[in-house]
């Protein structure tokens, strides 16, 4: 038998009502980057949790270096040399990088309890030099950018002499340049002897760094393949069990009814001279890199930023939008990027979340008409196919896709004319993404809505938008119909600002 660094045999994990992992075999070679992909709920995070000792497998065996091990808790996993970098990071925000890296394993001077600062500083510097990266190690970690926090996490696992590093969605909030730096770093780590399990939603990335890829679906392992022997289409088909990749949703629209017109909009330090038009029944895409001002534009249109100058017209009538309340009254609905933080009240019921923006229509003398509320919510539940057994359930128990549908329902009830989607599919898996695109498409076809999608994923924009605005440094630098442009050209344009033609 080949010697493997890590070998999992017949791992099964049941939770009440679901089999999260069904007889899974998984292995990791020495010096390997092994990508793990699958939709939400496919079982990949459960396997990672078992490897980290957060959950205990019901059946199956785990071997490390051909020796059978039992991982009962997280500190045991770390002792075995298994480390995980979570999406939200495990860092103490008010400690600096050095303190975070050595947290729990501080070097001590001869007198117990006193930390040897010089030694930890020196070691940190050596590790960061090896990684080829310079970061400010003297300031609290909360002032560091996301990619730099990630570096600190990586340094942490290097200092702890990890043999296996699990990275959960490490590229989710990075710009293309930062992703490039991370990939170089991962390859360096591999060459220095570490093996990496790379969990990701961005399938195209696995071809750039991984040696092998394993696909999970519905708690089962579908395939493990060498990366040279497979391609994007195969992986996505295996993940979803469907053929989705080449489906495009956008359509050419010849409407000339302006629903929204923005003239010379200016917001201090954020937006400069924004001019845009939204036509009735179209999906307008606005894209740009991180910091291009697109999220700020979305927030401004919803009354969340103070407008310094400029004019906004809705259906030809000039309006003032100073608060979300104003925006809602003018028929604008906003689906924020961070659904859980900004879009939902997790502890409240599904139905309460759905009617929260339009309660005034359900109220007589301040009292809520519960019967009418239930009818309206059930109607929307059927229309958008929201998968919940009970509309009185707390919304936190719904899946990400269904939560997104609930937020859409909320705005359908306010009689919105314009829906603003800010990064609608961030953190959502491939299958649910397609579902959201389908919903947008159906909304356009079956209602009077017009949609603006703000997204930094060019694939997404090219897939659904009718027209595209490109943003850079708070300005709109170009407008394009979704014809004959490619992802590469978009990328070149927004990153250089140079002429596209």
């Amino acid at each position, binding site marked *: 038998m080949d010697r493997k660094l890590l070998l999992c045999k017949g791992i099964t994990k049941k939770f009440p009502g679901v089999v999260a992992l069904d007889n899974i075999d998984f292995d990791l070679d020495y010096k390997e980057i092994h990508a793990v992909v699958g939709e939400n709920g496919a079982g990949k995070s459960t396997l990672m949790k078992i490897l980290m000792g957060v959950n205990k497998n019901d059946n199956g065996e785990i071997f490390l270096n051909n020796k059978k091990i039992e991982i009962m808790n997280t500190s045991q996993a770390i002792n075995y040399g298994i480390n995980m970098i979570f999406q939200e990071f495990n860092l103490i925000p008010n400690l600096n990088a050095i303190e975070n890296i050595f947290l729990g394993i501080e070097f001590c001077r001869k007198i117990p309890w006193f930390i040897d600062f010089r030694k930890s500083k020196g070691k940190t510097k050596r590790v960061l030099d090896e990684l080829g990266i310079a970061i400010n190690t003297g300031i609290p970690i909360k002032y560091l950018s996301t990619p730099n926090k990630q570096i600190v996490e990586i340094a942490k696992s290097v200092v702890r002499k990890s043999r296996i590093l699990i990275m959960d969605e490490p590229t989710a909030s990075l710009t293309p340049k930062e992703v490039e730096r991370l990939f170089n770093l991962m390859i360096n780590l591999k060459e220095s002897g570490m093996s990496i399990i790379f969990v990701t939603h961005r399938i195209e990335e696995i071809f750039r760094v991984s040696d092998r890829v394993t696909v999970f679906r519905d708690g089962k392992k579908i395939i493990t393949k060498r990366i040279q022997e497979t391609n994007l289409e195969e992986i996505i088909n295996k993940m979803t069990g469907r053929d989705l990749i080449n489906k495009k949703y956008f359509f050419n629209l010849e409407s000339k009814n302006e629903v929204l017109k923005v003239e010379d909009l200016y917001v201090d330090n954020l937006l400069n001279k924004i001019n845009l038009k939204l036509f009735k029944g179209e999906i307008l895409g606005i894209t740009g890199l991180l910091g291009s001002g697109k999220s700020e534009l979305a927030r401004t249109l919803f009354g969340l930023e103070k407008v310094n100058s400029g004019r906004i017209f809705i259906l030809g009538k000039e309006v003032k939008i100073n608060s979300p309340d104003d925006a809602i009254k003018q028929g604008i609905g906003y689906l924020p990027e961070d659904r859980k933080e900004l879009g939902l009240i997790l502890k409240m019921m599904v139905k309460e979340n759905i009617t*929260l923006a339009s309660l005034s229509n359900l109220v007589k003398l301040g009292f809520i008409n519960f019967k009418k509320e239930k009818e309206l919510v059930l109607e929307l539940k059927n229309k958008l196919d929201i998968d919940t057994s009970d509309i009185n359930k707390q919304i936190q128990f719904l899946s990400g896709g269904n939560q997104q549908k609930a937020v859409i329902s909320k705005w359908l009830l306010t009689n919105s004319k314009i829906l603003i989607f800010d990064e609608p599919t961030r953190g959502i898996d491939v299958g649910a993404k397609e579902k959201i695109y389908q919903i947008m498409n159906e909304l356009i076809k079956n209602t009077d809505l017009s949609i603006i999608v703000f997204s930094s994923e060019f694939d997404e924009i090219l897939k659904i938008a009718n027209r595209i605005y490109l943003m850079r440094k708070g300005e709109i630098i170009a407008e394009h119909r979704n014809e004959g442009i490619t992802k590469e050209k978009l990328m070149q344009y927004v990153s250089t600002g140079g002429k596209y033609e």
Partner: protein
Amino acid sequence: MNKSNYDNTSGAQKYTISLNKTKRILHKIVSFRELWIFLSLVLICIFLSFSSEYFLTVNNLLNVIRQVSIIAIIAIGATFVIITGGIDLSVGSIVAVIGVVVAMSVQAGINVWISFLIGILGGVLIGLINGLIITRLKISPVITTLAMMMILRGLTYVLSGARPLYNLPEQFKFLGAGYLGPLPIPIIIMTVLYICFHILLTRTRLGRYIRAVGGNELASEHTGINVKNVKMIVYIMAAVLASLGGIILASRLGSAQPTAGVYLEFSVISAALLGGTSLSGGEGTMLGTLIGALIIGVISNGLNLLNVDAFYHQIVKGLVILIAVLIDRFRVKRIED
């Protein structure tokens, strides 16, 4: 039912169905928020009825409820404030200052009922100031209401010359010491208020907005709710209810005491927490708070009946809060399983 027609399958089915139904009902009971806290109240009452023969008399129970009614009324406001994720530490001082203001107004010859109205309006003003500082100047509720607590206590001493105000007319005592039939007036006021505010919290738009703001302030703002106004309203509610509490207390005692309501804010917050209101916001019920207030009252009464040294009372009350929170955590776990 005809026994010869007994069908095995349908019998089994029926059994499963009835089992499921029982399970559902059981689950409903277990997840019923107020159940555990209610059981605790019952347990304490059973214990006390065995320890003291006087406990379970109509007179004593009415007395307990009357004593607790002031805490219970003020705890309504505290619950609303805590549901929005805030806290109000100034209610104890409001009780004192409004009591003094109303007594002074009566002594100045103003009609008793108009004086009560002046007291309530004073509460509106204080709540408005609290709310404005918290929502417009964005100072945290703890600091704002702590400062207000000290300012109002000082104001009370200044106004009263640090002396109790006596010599109030008989009419003044009706609200606190009067009866309607066999029932003390404060108990009637408390009951009516609990019913009204229960309806407000569960059936009205304002109630839902209050829960939404506490559940997730940012998301509420992004849904078009005027978060600032909702917060203003709950701080005004809290101050008005505290003023009412102050009026009832002065009326019951027949005098306005400048030291009234010291530490009262903590009893009030305890009642809300005992009743399952979550300090992180978004959760809380009127029934829970009422039971919480009753527990505090029953324990005080029991300690008195059992002749426990007054110094131990605080220790016992502190322990009760810790136990209540532990019970609540146990309940949450059971539902998750």
